[in-house]
């Protein structure tokens, strides 16, 4: 296998060709090559969920994804879902409900929640808890996070 490979990917709506190392993790591609620091590394073993991004519609821990396998993929990270002036309903709800404390798990948490709401716009509280089981939060105890996702879901339903 050649050491480096050129891949074509769409990151937050922008198509680009990038040369990646044979063993380069997606999280390193995002943080180091594309200088997008929103995706956080909490464990490097897929146990904490802090680095979750959406790849081809699915929430995945980016520390477990080898970039070489991503040719032709569409990737959405926290930087791609909202801006200070136009926050995503999840971002808005996380702020309003107090679902953000230290904030290290927040980007991954929001991406997992977005993936849930993309496929199930009307989740129950239990379904939200189950969908976020791979995203560890050591600060909040999750209650506010579940509140935020429920509020965002409602807002997104009323918009669509």
């Amino acid at each position, binding site marked *: 296998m050649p050491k480096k490979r050129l891949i074509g990917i769409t990151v937050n709506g922008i198509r680009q060709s990038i040369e990646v190392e044979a063993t380069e993790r997606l999280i390193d591609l995002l*943080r180091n090559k594309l200088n*997008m*620091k*929103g*995706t*956080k*590394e*909490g*464990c*490097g*073993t897929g*146990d*904490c969920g*802090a680095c979750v991004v959406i790849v081809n519609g699915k929430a995945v821990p980016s520390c477990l994804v080898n970039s070489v396998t991503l040719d032709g993929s569409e990737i959405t*990270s*926290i*930087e791609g879902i*909202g*801006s*200070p002036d136009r*926050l995503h309903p*999840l*971002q808005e709800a*996380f*702020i*309003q*409900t*107090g679902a*953000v*404390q*230290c*904030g*290290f*798990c*927040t*980007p991954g948490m*929001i991406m997992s929640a977005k993936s849930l709401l993309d496929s199930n716009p009307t989740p129950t509280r239990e379904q*939200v*808890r*189950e969908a*976020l*089981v*791979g*995203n*560890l*939060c*050591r*600060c*909040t*105890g*999750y*209650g*506010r*996070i*579940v509140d935020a996702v429920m509020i965002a879901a409602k807002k997104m339903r009323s918009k669509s």
Partner: protein
Amino acid sequence: MKIGQDCSIVGRPVPREDALDKVLGRPIFTADLIPRDAVYVAFVRSTRPHAKILRINAEPALKTKGITRLIGKGDIPGINNIGCIIPDRPLFSDEIVRCVGDPICAVLADDRRTAEEGARAVEVEYEDMPAVFSPLEAMRPDAIKIHSEGNVVKHIKIRKGDIERGFRDSDVIVENEYRTQMQEHAPIEPDVALAMPPDEDGIITIIGPWQCAFDVQDSVAVVLGLRPSKIRVLQTQAGGAFGCRSDENENGLSALTALVSSITHKPAAIVMSREESTVSHAKRHPFFMKYRTGARRDGTLIAEEIEIVSDTGAYVSWGVNVLKRATVHCTGPYVIPNVKADAYCVYTNNPYTSAFRGFGCPQVHFAAESQINCLAESLSMDPVVLREKNLLRPNAQTSTGQVLGTSVGLDECLRKVANRLRSIVLPPVEEGFRRGVGIAIGYHGNSLGPEGGDRCGATVTIRNDGHVDYMIGLMEYGTGSRFGHAQIVAEILGMTIDRVHVKPSDTLVLPFSGPTVASRSTVMGGNAALLVSRRLRETIGREAAQILDCSPEELVFADNSVHSLRDKSRSMSIQKLASICREKGISLSHSEIYDAPVTDWDEEKGLGSPYFDYTFGAIGAVVDVNLGTGYPKVRKIIAAYDCGKVINPLSAIGQVEGAVSQGLGYAIMEEMCTKDGSIVNPNLADYFICTAVDSPEVETLFVEEYPSEHGPFGAKCIAEPPLDIVAPAVTQAIYIATGVRIKHLPATGEKILSGIK
């Protein structure tokens, strides 16, 4: 501002300012800020619990591509020590390693992975020495010595009343032994540090998620042999801390990166893997506790005798202070006339233990509250009634002889939880489960008390555009307490909250604020914010009074402006006022230092008034135990807290819910396991913390009718106290459901199941 006065911002659930950066994923954490040209450092760590270092062979590492050099104790220009309380802990091991994970030396590379590989390639030849892993064995006179002074670092005691007579007068005596485990903080952000090379003035800047910026400054100065003013410490946002960024670990990471940046003249970074981070920082002290409790037949508590042995591992760190706090709180929040307690802080060759949210209180509350439940059973009394009969009320005397003031809302907290547990409607118990309900109560001394000098400075500046910058040397690690300070500043200056901004803390410009520990931020930092903003109000008030032609006392500060009480039309914006002050050369940047009220703790007598305030609370747990697996599913937690005036309910509820989740992990699943002193589960796949599914719905109730006489607006601390009493509430619920009394945490399904059978 007097208590009870109407507040416009203090007491409101205002969403915090820094949440925006966090939901957008902005680069605010240390690892996000590492420049591309940084040198990466990795520690070479001991694999032995107790051994002499015979030889370090760096050749294999230096042959690894990308490894630039080795750094060892010979490179330290100052003193090779980073100890917190006593100098028992070197940065790099001095001939002897005392626990697995002790740093021996470090390697440098241009990237993190290569540095880690290089560190693994360094060969260390050891001569193993006998090791001791049980603190009970380490206390024996014939035990091997881990440090030259012997293994018992400290004996702390309480002597109140006449214990012999107390037990003679008791109708019922309950005696039990309890054990608690080693718990890992598991902040989601692993340990990290960044140092920038000396600038033209020779100042080295250290950037990291430090809880104690001023301690880091002093410690690094010692290691580098520099004046502390040559070390500048910037605190970034921290991805959680819970105590693990407050001790030798932060001193060590800072000193190492500062050392490397001063040698290489490049930025130096250390970014730890989850596993190394877990091995690197301290844990919660395991306690071995013996409790003997005596009461009259009517339930009146008469006597309690307690022995505590705390395993501080290979280094003391904050262990002595943890034990002081544990001892002061060891009977739980009760009136007991005769108390005798003896607590020992003991070295072993286990990983070192230190500060962790609760700071000794979770261990002793577990034992003390379990005792009350056992006693209630012996007396055939309702445990709530037994608690009501004995708990601390206003003006009561604690077990250290401290006479409390009026800020004691414990009775009300217990009543609220008990009532809510009666009225709450829960889903029926599923087949194969059995339900139990448990209650526990607790108290928690605010701020440092006997743990150290207690003062806190803050700086407030009104800018020319009418915005206000607030700075304090206490860090933001998730609690939002600095935003609470901003609310206080806004309240006093009559500003809207969007005009008050919390700036990152920087030891170069800030007055001493002390450490960000002991839930002291709201009380100490809040008071500093109150003090400094009042002084600033006086300064601008003098000018405003002249311009508006009234006395300073008649001024009303509101809506970003100031007006005369008599004539509202005589008004001026703060922005305009700031401009006028600038023209006149009046400084609108003030710093103040708040000194904590005096406390006293007589170590010889084992009595005193160690904390100026206590937070009180009660927790109720509804637990369904799975009879097939033993797993205790917590359905609901009700928490009622007297933390005085709540500055920001959104943040305060967040603290209660978070502490409950961490306390629940401590109660039922978390245990850092060691084998021969080596941690066997240093990752999040094998060390379980509560997930969104494990964490229950929490209902938080505040009792605000007993405000503090000292805290800002009557506030007391809230971040730690709820963690103290989750375990005894949950284990009591398990007992009610199954008849299994857990005396050794955590209450895992396995333990419960083996008890049922």
